[in-house]
């Protein structure tokens, strides 16, 4: 097991190296010379050259890349061009809303999607199945901001049940924290729910045809128990896989959701950084999200052994 974890960690190195190389090239080929920006309009060519040398911008690509990777290994993401603050600190300040949003969305999505998929599979071909699958197609097709604005309009503006926008920290009370996250999580979770429901249904359909399901039924096990204990356990691997892969959707979606609901998270940071062309911040966020994504999927591989003890590494 430990050997497997180590081997998998080693296997993520080339992947992360590709990501790092790409992200670094992004800064390298970025239009606009940081030295010119820092020097301002009044600078003489000599001053610009001096700044460029002091930033190390005059050295070759490979050396700068290796230096940058060296900094990364020391968890130093550099400073924002715009504010001059360390990117680490900027990310740290924005981490809580995004993590909260993702956590609430994950819990909401998994707890709705898996039962929906199971029910759809057990009633395959009936109107219940068709209704659920129609919703799943809708979930795929309706973009996050559409769901977001619609929900905010109805539940926050018309009925005034939930706050319209903004974020309060979990330290200021659980309910006010949660109430600010309900609508965003729902909007963000739609696509995710649709994806998990579809995969759960497809896998369950396959599992329900197996002999051991018939055996369980034959010995008089109740329908709920057959579905959620006998069948779901055996359908877990594809479902867990798609939950892991779908995290990419959540990350991309968080950028939009945070804009719609004015959550001060990493997504907003990304958007602001793009509008200001603040490349170190863009690099930092992409690196962070990508490594999170890779780690989540590594975690998913390890979860396999828990949900399905037949898998051993």
């Amino acid at each position: 097991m430990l050997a497997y974890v180590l081997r998998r960690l080693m296997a993520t190195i080339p992947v992360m190296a590709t990501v790092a190389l790409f992200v670094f090239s992004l800064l390298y080929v970025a239009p606009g010379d940081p030295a010119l920006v820092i020097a301002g309009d009044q600078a003489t060519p000599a001053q610009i050259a001096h700044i460029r040398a002091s930033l190390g911008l005059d050295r070759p690509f490979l050396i700068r890349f290796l230096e940058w990777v060296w900094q990364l290994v020391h968890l130093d993401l550099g400073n924002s061009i715009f504010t001059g603050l360390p990117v680490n600190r900027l990310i740290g300040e924005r981490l809580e809303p995004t993590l909260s949003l993702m956590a609430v969305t994950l819990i909401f999505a998994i707890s709705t999607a898996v039962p929906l998929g199971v029910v759809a599979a057990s009633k395959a071909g009936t109107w219940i199945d068709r209704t659920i699958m129609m919703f799943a197609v809708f979930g795929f097709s309706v973009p996050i901001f559409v769901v977001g604005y619609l929900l905010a309009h109805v539940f926050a503006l018309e009925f005034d049940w939930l706050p319209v926008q903004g974020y309060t920290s979990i330290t200021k009370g659980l309910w006010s924290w949660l109430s600010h996250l309900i609508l965003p999580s729902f909007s963000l979770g739609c696509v995710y729910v649709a994806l998990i429901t579809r995969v759960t249904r497809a896998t369950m359909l396959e599992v329900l045809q197996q002999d051991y399901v018939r055996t369980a039924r034959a010995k008089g096990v109740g329908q709920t128990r057959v579905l959620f204990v006998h069948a779901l356990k055996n359908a877990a691997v594809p479902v867990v896989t798609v939950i892991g892969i779908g995290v990419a959707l959540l990350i991309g979606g968080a950028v939009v959701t945070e804009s719609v609901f004015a959550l001060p998270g990493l997504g907003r940071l990304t958007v602001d950084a793009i509008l200001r062309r603040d490349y170190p911040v863009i690099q930092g966020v992409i690196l962070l999200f990508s490594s999170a994504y890779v780690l989540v999927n590594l975690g998913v591989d390890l979860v396999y052994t828990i949900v399905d003890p037949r898998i051993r590494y």
Partner: protein
Amino acid sequence: MVLIALFAPVLGTVDPGALSPMLRTRDPSAQFWFGTDIMGRDVYSRVLYGTRVSLVVGISVAVFASIGGLLVGIVAGFSRRADAIIMRLMDGLMAIPAILLAVALMALTRGSIGNVILAITIPEIPRVARLVRGVVLGLREQPYVDAAVAAGTRTPKILYMHILPNTFPHLIVQASYICASAMIAEAILSFIGAGTPPIVPSWGNIMAEGRALWQVKFYIVMFPAIFLSLTVLAVNLLGDGLRDSLDPRLAGRL
């Protein structure tokens, strides 16, 4: 939707760029079917013209990503040496969430429809390549490919004659899903200000402009949103239909 895109100039009641400062943020009426936006432009006409942007982006991305992915996938699937390197590179690209990658690419370039198409295409290529590679790996073991090799057929001809046609059913289905997600991606990019230049009326841009006013003038956001959702829904259903008819075994399963 295709018809709307083609006939946008005929259907549009006024020039989508025409400013009427006197008629700002009017509610929907007989004169302005979907109302007017913050600069007094007719939302109805702008939404109609937005159809063009979305369809052009969606279809171009689907075509380019399919061609790119097909080339990469076939090479990876047929050459063991290239396979390892190419797929590691693709894994790296896939580790970056698609929207973020597109956003990063857009941050490098000036906003134009061409750049938007490119920025959405690049993240899709690894996904297509992976699919094609899988299909090619399966096909390579087929007896008729062995027969062709034994008969002395040269590799490019085998690829062209025997492998390529068999990837099409998978590719067409995938392309329709890519088309749908590309339209959403375009709207997202424009919405966060990293997409089509603001002067072009795309659905994402109209929503981005309506965002400032959404609490009072909800319709500016809602009309393009409805159009976008319906179009994407239609394309997704098309993809489902294609999949069911091209691969009867899967019908009704997913």
